[in-house]
């Protein structure tokens, strides 16, 4: 057997393979069809008598109308909301609760109801040609909070806060940031996640570098579903990963939260707010 006999067949195979590799790698693909599901973002707010549920269609298209949401307690509908016309359900109503992400696409459904702490609720949302998405959450206990803020110069440098336990809370997120509208909120803020009911410690000055007076303190109690949804996942084209979700036959989250924001002292920081409770303050 001569050398060429040994080499030519595999070489030929290589050439054929290379030729077959000439399929066009630049062509776009059509992704498999998205499931006909809804995306929900909602958290029971123990301090509010209006519950806000953001509803979107998977793929970010608007779901067909009408969209209805029902809140059930022990099998009984305790609140119901719907969007029947395209001009209704403005997402800006959800901005205060769910941040800037709510300003585009989808609907914000308002359910008039003050949840009972410690009680489990079921949310069911329907839209034409979509599966009924549902999830359960247990309302958190409202809490009371006291806070002292020490300053170095014109910036907070130390926080000493304590609060009553919010039954059912998985994490407390304590935040200090500038409420000056000129400051970019994304550039100015400090937080600590706490499992206890008090926190005392320094504030990283670098985190408040971009902000300025006045400063505000917030404490959010979250159940695990909402906390995980907010803190998991990663963005970016190459390493995009989804957040943790708990909606059945749909996507997103339905959790619970409680919230407190003491009144800032315009001169020296914060006065004690001994009887400030979570349901007495809501985001503006």
């Amino acid at each position, binding site marked *: 057997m001569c050398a060429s006999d040994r080499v030519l067949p595999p070489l030929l195979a290589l050439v054929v393979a290379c030729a077959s590799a000439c399929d066009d790698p630049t062509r776009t693909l059509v992704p498999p069809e998205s499931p006909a599901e809804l995306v929900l973002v909602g958290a029971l707010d123990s301090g509010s008598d209006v519950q806000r549920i953001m509803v979107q269609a998977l793929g970010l298209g608007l779901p067909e109308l009408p969209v209805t949401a029902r809140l059930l307690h022990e099998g009984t509908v305790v609140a119901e909301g719907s969007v029947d016309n395209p001009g209704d359900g403005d997402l800006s109503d959800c901005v205060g609760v769910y941040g800037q992400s709510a300003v585009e696409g989808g609907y914000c459904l308002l359910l008039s109801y003050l949840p009972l702490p410690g009680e489990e609720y079921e949310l069911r949302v329907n839209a034409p040609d979509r599966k009924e998405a549902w999830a359960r959450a247990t309302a958190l206990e409202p809490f009371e909070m006291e806070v002292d803020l020490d300053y170095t110069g014109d910036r907070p440098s130390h926080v000493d806060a304590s609060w009553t336990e919010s039954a059912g809370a998985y994490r407390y997120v304590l935040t200090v940031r500038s409420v000056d509208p000129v400051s970019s909120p994304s550039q100015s803020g400090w937080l600590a996640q706490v499992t206890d009911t008090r926190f005392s410690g320094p504030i990283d000055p670098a985190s408040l570098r971009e902000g300025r007076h006045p400063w505000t303190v917030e404490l959010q109690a979250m159940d695990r579903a909402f906390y995980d949804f907010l803190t998991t996942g990663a*963005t970016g084209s190459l390493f995009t990963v989804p957040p943790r979700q708990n909606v059945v036959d749909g996507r997103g989250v339905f959790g619970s939260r409680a919230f407190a924001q003491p009144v800032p002292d315009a001169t020296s920081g914060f006065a004690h707010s001994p009887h400030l409770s979570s349901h007495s303050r809501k985001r503006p």
Partner: protein
Amino acid sequence: MTIGAFFLVLAGVGMGVDMPQAPSTPEGPASVIVGRVVGASEPGAPVRGARVGIDSLGLETRTDSLGRFALGPVSPGQWTLRVDAPGHRARTIRVLVPEADTVHVDLRLEPSDPGRIGGRVVDGVSGAPVPAAEVRTGSSGASTGRDGAFELEVDPASDAALRVRAFGYAPLDTLLRGGETTEREIVLTLAPRPVDMIPLTVEGAYPSAPAARLDRALFDREPRPGVVAVTGDDLRRLPFLIERDVLRSLDALLPGVVRINDLSARLHIQGGAPDQNLVLLDGAPILAPYHLFGIFGVLDPGTVGKVELFRGSIPARYGGALSSVLEVEQRTDSDGRLDVEAGIGLLSARAMARGDAADGRIRWMVAGRRSVTDLALEGLGLVDQSAPFHFQDGQARVEWTLGPDDVVRASAYGSRDDFTMFLEGGSADVRSIWANRVASLRWDRKLGGSWTAGVLARHTGVHSEIRLGGSEGSPVTSDDVGIDALRLETRRRGSSTGAHLGVEVERASTIVDGGARLGGYVEGRSERSRTSAAAWVELERRIGAFRLTPGLRGTMDTDGRFFLAPRLAARLHLGEDRHLTVGLDRTHQLLSTLRDDRHPLPGPPIWAVRGPDEPGTVADQASVAWDGWLSGPWHIGLSLWARRFLDVPVWRPTGDRTPIPTRFDDGRALGGEVIVRFQGARVRAWLGYAVGHSVLDDDGRTYDAPWDRRHSLQLAAFVEPAGRWRVSTQVSYGSGTPFWPQTGEGRAVFLDPRTGTLGRRDFFPIWGDRQLRFPSYFRADIGGGVRFGLAGALVDAHASLVNVTGRENVLYYDYRGPSELGGRPDAVLEPAQQLPFSFLPSLRIDVRF
């Protein structure tokens, strides 16, 4: 002066007192012929030891150290004077001799054609011949046969610096004086140096090229399927993507070694995951063997002496690896002088020094490398702050031959990477830091008989962290790994039997920490440690045409787990150079990375010791291989393998933030491979085809492994024509690997860990359950190098052109949903290219002083 010219000088040449005396003769009145023999290649240089004679008179003498001779007494008349000397063409001239006179004859000898010297290489202890030794002088080299004999082409007139290298022996460098080389058989004696498992038998004639010989030596040493040896020289000659790299080179040489894309040097071998490979540097594992997010490996081929790769079938002396063991040995070769190399490429600069001391008994190497592109960017003001990446590594090895029976080796390696990735559309950048620290100390001693013993102490450390955001207060997920081990082993090499026994105690600890701040990839802190003790035995027995190597490895750890891993390999010799090898192996692993194959997170691998209640991962493999060593440089290998995986950890960081693997999948893989290799002295080529299929099972839902490349073809070739130039090429084809496409997106809400604000996080993806496949992969690279002297230094420049065909291989697909398509209801997946350039050049210049 033309070739063959000679002249007679009738003027007298003074005779010194040391002049050879002419014998007396009964006939008279006689004359004497005196003269001088000089060389033509170096005009005027005396030729010592030249024979000068008149055959018809039975007269003969030799020249002295000044090339002088005196021949006589010579009867008057016309005689033919014959002159010959080693390394020169013999000459005859006619000389007219008068009565009672002195005839002066000066002769110039032309050098003879390049001659050949012969000799034998023998074991300095036993006197046995040493086969497959490399004997080299200048550009001429030869390999010894089974009887230790060699023939070498030399210039007989010059001194010859002989360099002798043989597996299992200390290097030998010696000088043969010109003129001595053809006078006798040269016997070169090598001092044995204990190494792992010297082959019991040499199965066939060894090829002459060092790469092929090393490969064949490993093949003979390890009778199991899938073993491959590669020399550092080959690794250095391949075209390279930005940086020369051991790991990427293996992928280029072997079709069954799969990388899933151009931005990853992580190797998938025989259907396994990257963390199932064990990369050993002088016996110590390197757990994060990658630079720049995994784009290329940490091992610089310039510092590597040799690489041995065990695929699938792994000897019992190795533990903790399921798919492969890559044993890398740092180079300490030295030619008796201080060698300093420095080089620079497009990304990094490197320096290496090596030499020896104490008459060659201590050999050492130290090397370092650092990225320079970042310095250039910063120096030129092309980046606002610090450059987004930098890396450095340093390594050293010392080998001390204490005596004929003892060798001590110390090895160290350290590296650090700092890389920042600005996520497109993300709310924060990701900064990733990781560092390796590896050290080992080994002492080998030759005992009585054919026994050797060794002790190895090693340490491996890894620190890695992923930081969300650039400030010191950013949330950090960190991983710290520490592995310390002590290993004792003994080996016996007999004429038809062999044994390798050993014990090892290892302590491994991992700390995965989500940090105090919110936003790390994991939450909380997991500290785990495990101490294990392992014992193994490898036996070897040759029975007729069979060579059996059963092995057994038992491991017990402090969590009460016990693993018994039989390894059986057998080889049937179908002739001198045809071999059928089968292997049945079980391997297990208790240290693995937290891995999410569907949605890989950026950054270094995060290692975690298996928890006390978690199972170890087990792989069972059956493999068969046919190898033919044909006509010296040709080798053809065919292999088939089938594997089963049990309890492969799969991490779903989006489903559970606890820093442990949360799920264990089973899997299986099936494949085969054909490799044809030609390893000549000036041309080497590897051509291979592999087919395979690997699947995993998630509680009854079967999916293809993300690295499931069904077909792949590889061609790598090096051509070194005579002279200083060399060219190389590598061509890769692979069918597409699977991926899970994004099918939709939802809007996410994000608690910004830097500020505590709730805000947008663009969209979260909805991944489909049905896998698609990337288009086929194709890449052709070419490289070329030149070596030349410059001001006393040796300059070695190598340039590569990567992806010369401009193939736009796909790295991933971007989902373009309705929100990005003007409200259109449809969505598309747009390919993102792997390489931003279709003709990516890479350049490296090394200077050796």
